[in-house]
Structures are given as C-alpha cells and as structure tokens.
C-alpha cells in the first residue's frame, strides 16, 4: 500500500530521511510537546462542546433541571451551558476537561517559554520561532479570554465589563475600538456571537496555523541541544525520530490526556450555575479571571488611580496598568532576541544551549520579570488572600505594591550572585586537572597534539 502512495507522491526518500532525523533528548525539551497535546485535548473536547453551545444572547426562560434557576430569564447562551452541565450526557465532564486543559495549556506554554528563555534557545538562527512562539502565547491567551466569556454567566460578564473598560481607555481611539469590538455600548447583544466566532473559527485557525509553522521551522532548523557527549555547534546528537521519539511522544500524549481527563472528572471547575445569569447591575465577590489574565487584573488592583489629560484628551486610569503594561511586556518579549544581540554584539549562530548560569545577566533579568508576573498574578487574588489570612484588603494591597517594586530587584541580585558563584565553583573544580589533549599519529610514528 505504501508503494501505491510512493508511486504517486514520491515520498519514500523524504520519509526515510524524516524517520531517521535526530532529536536531542533532554526532558525539558518536552514541555512544548505537552502544550501541543493539551491543544489536541482542547480541540477534541471543544468540538464536542460546540455541538451543544448556542451563541445567542436572546433572552429565554430556563426550563432545565437546575432548580434554583428554573423559570428565570437568561440568555440562550447561558441556558445552553447549563444544559451542557446538567442535561447533556457527559457534558459537564467535557466542559471541565476543556477548562482544565485550557488552564494547563497556558501554564505549560509559559514553562516552555521559560525553558527557551533561560537557555538562550531563541538566539540566531531561531529568532523567527521565538516570534511565532510569542504569537502562539497571544493566541492562546485570546482563546482563553474568549472561552471564559462564552458561558455568559455573572462572573464572565464581569470580566467582559473590565475588558470593555480597558479598551475604551485607550487614548483617542478607545471608544471607537470598543464599539467596533463589542458592536455598541456594553452590554451588547452582539458580543456573545462575536466571541463565539473568534473562539471557534478565527483564533483556532491562527493558533493551529502558527503551531504548524512553529513545528515546520523546528524541523527545518533542528532542535538546540546542551553541550556534552559529542554535541557540538555543528553536530547534533540524540535519538532518532523513529522509533525513540515517536514512542516517547505517544506516551506523553496519552499521559497528558489522562491527567487532564482525571482533573476534569474529579475536580470541579467554573461552576457557572452558582454564579447565575449575567446581569450588568450585579456583581459577586470574589471575582477573578482565569489565572493567565490574573497579572493584568492584579495590575489594575495595585496601580494607583492615575488619570491625566494629554493633548486635551483624558487618559482614564485603567490605561496605564490595563493597556500600556501588557503592551510593554509583550513588546519587550517580542524584541528580546534582537535587543540581546544588539547589546552583546553577538551575531553568531548558536545551536548549543547556555545553562542559566552561563548568562547571569539574562537569567537575572528573566527572574526579575518572572517575579513581577508572579506578584501581579497573586495580586488578582488580594481579596481571597485577605479572606484566608484575615488581613485587611488595604494592607494586603499595600504589601503587594511594595513587593512588586522591591522583590524583582532583590531576586535579580540574588540570582546574579548565585550564577556567578556557580561559575566560580565550576572553574575552581576544573583547576589543577590535567587538560585532555587530542593526539595525532604523525608520519614519523610519534604523536603530535592536534590543535583545535
């Protein structure tokens, strides 16, 4: 049968080469794959949910089996999510697997990105894949935000309200941009169906397309590797694609699906029925976004309410933390590989990874940025922290304001010192050791050192 295809497509040679392709093996290189497999689970469960979800803001009367909401008016969208949760076979577990998979998907993307950053894997010639990776992160976040908002419950409506306020705060174009995106002044009838189109058509197409490109470029450029065991800048050492990598990846995929299925089956997530239908006059506390938007919510909570006038236009207070901060963060991340090569003057190709200690400044900057991110993310839960620790919200907020400024500097300095110390110890342990020299037999029968 294979011959039949080969006669028509001539793919035997290409396939044979592909199956033998060598991939460096290090466990930290698998994070991206785990993210990919989360995406597989997301697509599978998402298709199921799409069969039952109704992207419609029309008001209906709920007749389903959740008693407290029986007979209440709600959007058809929220009704369909309640039906999915209570009246569709396996609907709730599919919803929960989908939601857990989304939270874990972004988490694993972040871990993968941290691995790439701290090992310098984005350096020439792989800047392109770094840029596509940033795009993937943006698409994944957009998928998360649109998906979070689809159920049209009270919690997600509160989130949309905040997004609307952030968009409208953009100087000069804000109101127009918000009206364009939402189809009018919040709350709009159009937003649910628009979110649906973004979530199941536009964004998945972009996301899957970018994943394809990401993998194609990886295949073309080969994977980076750590130094050691013959691995050199011009020599890649590892396991063949077939059978080693294929079997590893299959196992990883099955286990990823297993973990996500277990979470979806055992741990409740987003019980939309407790929040009730969205009503712009209501809000419940605590209200939080999913974790990956927490840093933006946290920034809004921590940032002092600064409002100023620029060329006769008022810049509302959500602009600096809600729009400028993420803009700066993604701007710096996007430009990072180019900034680094510009500052260091290093324009060579790199296929061997650096360990974090090998680039102390980069590692310290990365740790500082990560600290800001973590503190801001925790700040999104300032009221929950106050409830659990029984500390006034105001004190929690002031503490976090202090932490977000001071901790990054402290951790950066500590990180830099640790890197330097590790380097120093490594050098010290090598001192006094005989240096290995490669010898070459010469014509006279003796040996001469080969200089490399």
């Amino acid at each position, binding site marked *: 049968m294979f011959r039949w295809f080969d006669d028509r497509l001539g793919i035997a040679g290409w396939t044979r080469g592909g199956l033998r*392709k*060598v991939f460096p093996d*290090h*466990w930290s290189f*698998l*994070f991206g*794959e*785990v993210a990919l497999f989360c995406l597989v689970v997301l697509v599978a469960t998402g298709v199921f949910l799409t069969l039952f979800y109704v992207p419609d803001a029309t008001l209906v009367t709920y007749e389903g089996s959740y*008693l*407290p*909401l029986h007979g*209440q008016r709600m959007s058809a969208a929220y009704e369909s999510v309640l039906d999915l*949760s209570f009246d569709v076979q396996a609907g*709730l577990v599919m919803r*929960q697997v989908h939601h857990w998979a989304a*939270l*874990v998907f972004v*988490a694993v993307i972040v*871990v993968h990105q941290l691995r790439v950053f701290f090992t310098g894997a984005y350096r020439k010639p792989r800047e392109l894949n770094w840029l596509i990776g940033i795009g993937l992160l943006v698409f994944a976040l957009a998928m998360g935000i649109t998906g979070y908002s689809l159920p049209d419950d009270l919690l997600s409506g509160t989130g949309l309200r905040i997004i609307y306020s952030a968009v409208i705060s953009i100087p000069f174009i804000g109101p127009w941009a918000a009206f364009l995106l939402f189809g009018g002044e919040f709350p709009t009838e159009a937003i649910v169906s628009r979110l649906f189109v973004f979530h199941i058509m536009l964004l998945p197409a972009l996301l899957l397309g970018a994943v394809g490109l990401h993998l194609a470029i990886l295949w073309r450029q*080969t994977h980076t590797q750590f130094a050691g065991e*013959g691995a050199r800048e011009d*020599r*890649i*050492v*590892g*396991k*063949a694609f077939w059978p080693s990598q294929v079997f*590893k990846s299959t*196992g*990883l995929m099955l286990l*990823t699906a297993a*973990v996500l299925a277990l979470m979806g*089956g055992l*741990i*409740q*997530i*987003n*019980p939309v029925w407790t929040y*009730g239908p969205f009503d712009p*006059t*209501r*809000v*419940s*506390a*605590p*209200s*939080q976004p999913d*974790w*990956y938007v*927490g840093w933006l919510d946290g920034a809004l909570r921590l940032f002092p309410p600064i409002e100023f006038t620029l060329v006769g236009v008022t810049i509302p207070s959500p602009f600096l933390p809600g729009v400028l901060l993420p803009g700066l963060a993604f701007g710096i991340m996007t430009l990072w590989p180019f900034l680094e090569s510009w500052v260091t003057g290093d324009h060579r190709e790199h296929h061997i990874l650096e360990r974090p200690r090998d680039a102390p400044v980069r590692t310290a900057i990365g740790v500082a940025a990560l600290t800001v991110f973590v503190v801001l993310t925790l700040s*999104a*839960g300032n*009221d929950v922290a*106050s*409830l659990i620790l*029984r500390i*006034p*919200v*105001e*004190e929690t907020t002031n503490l976090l304001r202090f932490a977000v400024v001071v901790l990054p500097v402290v951790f950066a300095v500590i990180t830099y010192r640790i890197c330097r110390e590790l380097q120093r110890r490594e050098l010290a342990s090598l001192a006094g050791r005989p240096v290995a020299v490669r010898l070459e037999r010469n014509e006279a029968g003796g040996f001469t050192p080969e200089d490399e």
Partner: protein
Amino acid sequence: MRRTLLAALGAVAVLLLVVLASLAPPARGDDASLEPGSVERGEVLYRAGCQTCHGPAGGGVDPWPAIANAGEASADFQLRTGRMPHAGEPDDQAQPKPPAYDEQSIRDLVAFVGSLGDGPAIPDPVIDESLLQRGQQLFAVNCAPCHGATGNGGAVGGGAIAWPLTDASPRIVAEAMLAGPGQMPVFALPDDDLSAVATYVQYLQEAPNPGGFAIGGIGPVPEGFVAWVVGAGLLIAIAWLIGRRWSKPEGDEPA
C-alpha cells in the same frame, strides 16, 4: 530519586485537595426552639454580663453600641453565634465562636433585650422549595456581592469579613438580615423573602454540587492554583520521567 519525586508530588496534591476540601461546609445543628425566655432571669444575666458595655438600659457606654432597639432578632443572632460577649477592641469585628451561654440563658437574655425597646422579633423562616428561584435572585442581588456566589465568604475591606454562610441555619440567616450585624446592612424584607433567602442558603449548603471536589468554591483563584500544582506539576513530572536520558544517544547528524 524518581520514586521520591513522585511520592512528594503525590503528597502535595493530596494535601492540597484535603486543605481545599476542608473549606467545604461542615454539618449544621438544628434550629433552636422559639419558646420565649424569662425577662427576669435575663435581667440578672444582663446585669452581670452585658451592662458594663451596653449600659443598664441598653443605651450603650461609649464607644460600645446601644442595643435598646436591637430587638430579639439581633440579640439571638449575636448570642447564638457566640459573637457576644465580644472579645477584643470596640472596632474589632465580632468573631463567631461557640456560644458563651446555654440555651435557656440565651432565651432569657433575648427576652430581656427585647423588652428594652422596639426592635425586630425573632423571625421564623420556612424552608420552602417553591421559593428557591426567588431566593437565588435575592441572594445574587443582596448577598453574593459580599458573601460570594457560593456563600463561602469574602473580604469586605477594613479588615472585616463577610462570613462564610456554610454553617448558618435558616434562622441565623434571617436574623442577620433583620439585624444587620457589624458592617452588614439591614435587609428588612418581608417574611416570604426571608424564607426564600434562607431556602437558597440551605440549598447551597446541602444540594449535591456536581463536578467533583469543590476546591473552596471561591472561583478562579484555587482553580489556577490547582492547574499549576496538580496539572502542570504532574505533566512536568511525566515529561521528566519520559524524557530523561534512559540510554545512550543513538546517532548524530550535521546540524
């Protein structure tokens, strides 16, 4: 090494679930009787335990509050939930704790405080399933903004807590609405509405909550935590198990 790591991860996951599950509602006691107590016995108890702060006729001794017009509802709520006697400074929020008085003494004290002035009487909410929908709507508008959609409590600023309603009996719920203890506003609703809210609160406590471990019922914060520790944590451990070097490299090729 591998086994230790797995065991440690497992232990962390189990511990997390236990901690989060412990935030779930504990069992509730039965409603106390509505049999009125004796004003005379109550006065004796009041002179001994209350008038230092609340004054001989409930007028309050600055900075402690006047309670002459607090009514039976408020007195019953404060004493039955152990909030009174107050422990701490006047500005501190009264903490729920085991009641300091026995059942008979509480009824006597309530009768005496009720006799001091004009306040709401002890309500008698009825658990009625036909009021569930009304209860959900009233709860969403009036209660959820502070106590949370699941009634698991929230922080309301100034160090005060909107307490979890996870073990509040229907009567305590109705009394709190009439009395408005601490920073809580008074919700002087008709009896039917008090019953509706009490019915919904009891539904939140007792109805089966589908979906598995409720991990606190306080929204996306514990969800994000579990996504990282259980989800990402397990998957990173799995990646390490599968991806660590089990054998020598098989080959090499030009980069």
